[in-house]
């Protein structure tokens, strides 16, 4: 089993996300992470998927994705030089005083932004790869994580290469 990052360029049409995710569930695949948004070209969206499976299973999923009429292109970024990012919003218990100071210190170390402060909570925004967010969450747990929101992962190739220009 290996983690694969897939970048899928699709026509921005009604139902396309349902087609893509439906295909995964039908073939018994779990999606670990999913992020969708418009791409650089009008009328198209980019879906970034992180899935676990052996190479043959993932190859089959890629082929099945390619069969969807609204899928323009599927790129497997696994094992390639790339930058991956995820964003998290974490509302953590931090009463004024020692707790709040501790949370703010951790935030500084992780370059997280404090985007909101309540009477008894602080909300942090952090970006990075998944490991970094996992680590931050782990350190905040003892203070009491009230709510955690994570976006799906997105990924881009390093350098001047683009997935669009590749065959």
């Amino acid at each position: 089993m290996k983690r694969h990052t897939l970048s899928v360029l699709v026509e921005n049409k009604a139902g396309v996300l349902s087609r893509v995710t439906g295909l995964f569930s039908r073939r018994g695949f779990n999606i670990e992470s999913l992020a969708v948004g418009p791409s650089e070209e009008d009328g198209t969206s980019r879906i970034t998927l992180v899935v676990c499976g052996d190479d043959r299973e993932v190859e089959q999923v890629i082929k099945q994705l390619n069969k969807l009429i609204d899928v323009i292109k599927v790129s497997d970024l696994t094992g390639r030089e790339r930058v991956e990012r995820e964003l998290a919003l974490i509302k953590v218990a931090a009463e004024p005083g020692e707790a709040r100071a501790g949370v703010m210190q951790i935030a500084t170390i992780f370059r997280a932004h404090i985007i909101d402060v309540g009477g008894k909570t602080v909300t942090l925004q952090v970006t990075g790869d998944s490991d970094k967010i996992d680590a931050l969450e782990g350190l905040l747990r003892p203070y009491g994580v009230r709510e955690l929101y994570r976006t799906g992962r997105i990924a881009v190739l390093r350098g001047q290469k683009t997935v669009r220009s590749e065959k």
Partner: protein
Amino acid sequence: MTTTGAKVLIEGLLRQGTKTIFGYPGGVVLPIYDVLYDSPLEHILVRHEQAAAHAADGYARASGKVGVCLATSGPGACNLVTGIATAYMDSIPLVALTGQVPTNLLGNDAFQESDIYGITMPVTKHNYLVKRAADLPQVIAEAFYLASTGRPGPVLIDLPKDVSTGELPDDIAFPETVSLRGYQPTVRGHPRQIEKAVDLLVRAERPLLYAGGGVILSGADRELTALAERLGAPVTTTLMGLGGICGDHPLNLGMLGMHGTAYANYAVTECDLLVAIGARFDDRVTGRIETFAPHAQVIHIDIDPAEIGKNKPVDVPIVGDVKHVLTEILNRLPSNPKTERWLARVNGWRAAHPLVVPDNGSLHPQGVVRTLSDLLNGEGVVVSEVGQNQMWAAQHFCFKKPRSWLSSGGLGTMGYGLPAAMGACYARPGEQVFLIAGDGSLQMNIQEFGTIAHNRIPVRVVVLNNRYLGMVRQWQELFFDKRYSYTELPPVDFVGIANAYGIDGVRVNDPAEVRPALEAARDHDGPFVVDVRIEREENVFPMVPAGAAINEMIGGHE
């Protein structure tokens, strides 16, 4: 001047060459039916929407054209689903039209609303929910294009009522061509891969061609036969590939797999090169996949890249249309003189382990099928239901031409046969269309006797009547200690039912009556039913038990 969505829809169908559609009216399709009332498009009123889908499927299989069916929203649309899924599994080009509640009520749990767009997503090649009447010309053109090109399949168009009633300028343009950038099927095989395949073919000492439905779909029967003859290679076909090579061609080994011939299965196990042509290594074909063609290198030709390497690792994958690829291979392939010993071995198996036709004075289904095969002599169309009747037909009928055999392979849909046979009659007017049915599956869509009688559709039905759900009973006999749990059926007077609908028929209780009854069916002007009371506990042999290797057959020997 203006026109309506419904008129544009029917105009679009006519422009696509559609002559006959199968359907059932209802509330939200009233505007479409109003246009059909005085349209040149022929509409056949079925008795259940499932039959509309199967009839369109049978029409498509028998003609090679796109079949079209039409149903109303909600229950009508849902009733199409089994037929659409049947076509999907067998890659049959179908356009299914469904009515839908008006767009302003979508998602409102309105009367007869069902999310048929969502429901059919996993069983269609593509589907559409049309939101604007102006989109219709483009959607219709795309639907037919998608259904009939690449790996064919069903496409559904969901039509809200206000789309059908929507006004459009009557000079609205229909697209001449369709181009979709997310859909670019590869038709021509890659030259280097073809080169590699030729290389393997030339060197093979024990080659075997394994041909599937792709041969029929791409019209490659001549190329398949030419390749077999050039190489001196035997050919085995899947259920879907029957008719891809003439049934009595000396190189034809018949069907392989769970109920394949022993000699075809032995040939798979012993071959050193397996050429899969428009076939997909289905579990009913391969048995235990690890032991399928264990000594062979594999060439796999298929238009769908997702099929290649899906079930079985492949040495030379070739993505492309079977007809194109075989033509390219034939252009480069010298004749192969090395197979004489191999053919001698294969023919030894053929002589030692022929299909068994019991002959002990009782009425056996294998003999019925063989008699029909003699009578038709490769002409016309044979349709089957699903179960023992299907396997006996596949084993014992000698199919001589492509598109002469219609059967639900992938989905194994009981109830497919009777409506599919109706579709075949419209696709091939003037030709004999025989349905080989079981008493169980015939009763799954027996209401279509109504459609058949109403339109005098000349379907000839041969019921292999054993008063069992025979294939399930066979499994219970062999693997469940003869505990016949819910597989026995009470006797049914099928001729009586046919008569009640105004259809003639005859019951057969004795082997001597079989031939005269089948001749009477053939010669009858209009539909006819032959109810054959066969040996009740006859089994389909040979048989590969579930999970066994395909050379581990039971009942393959005298």
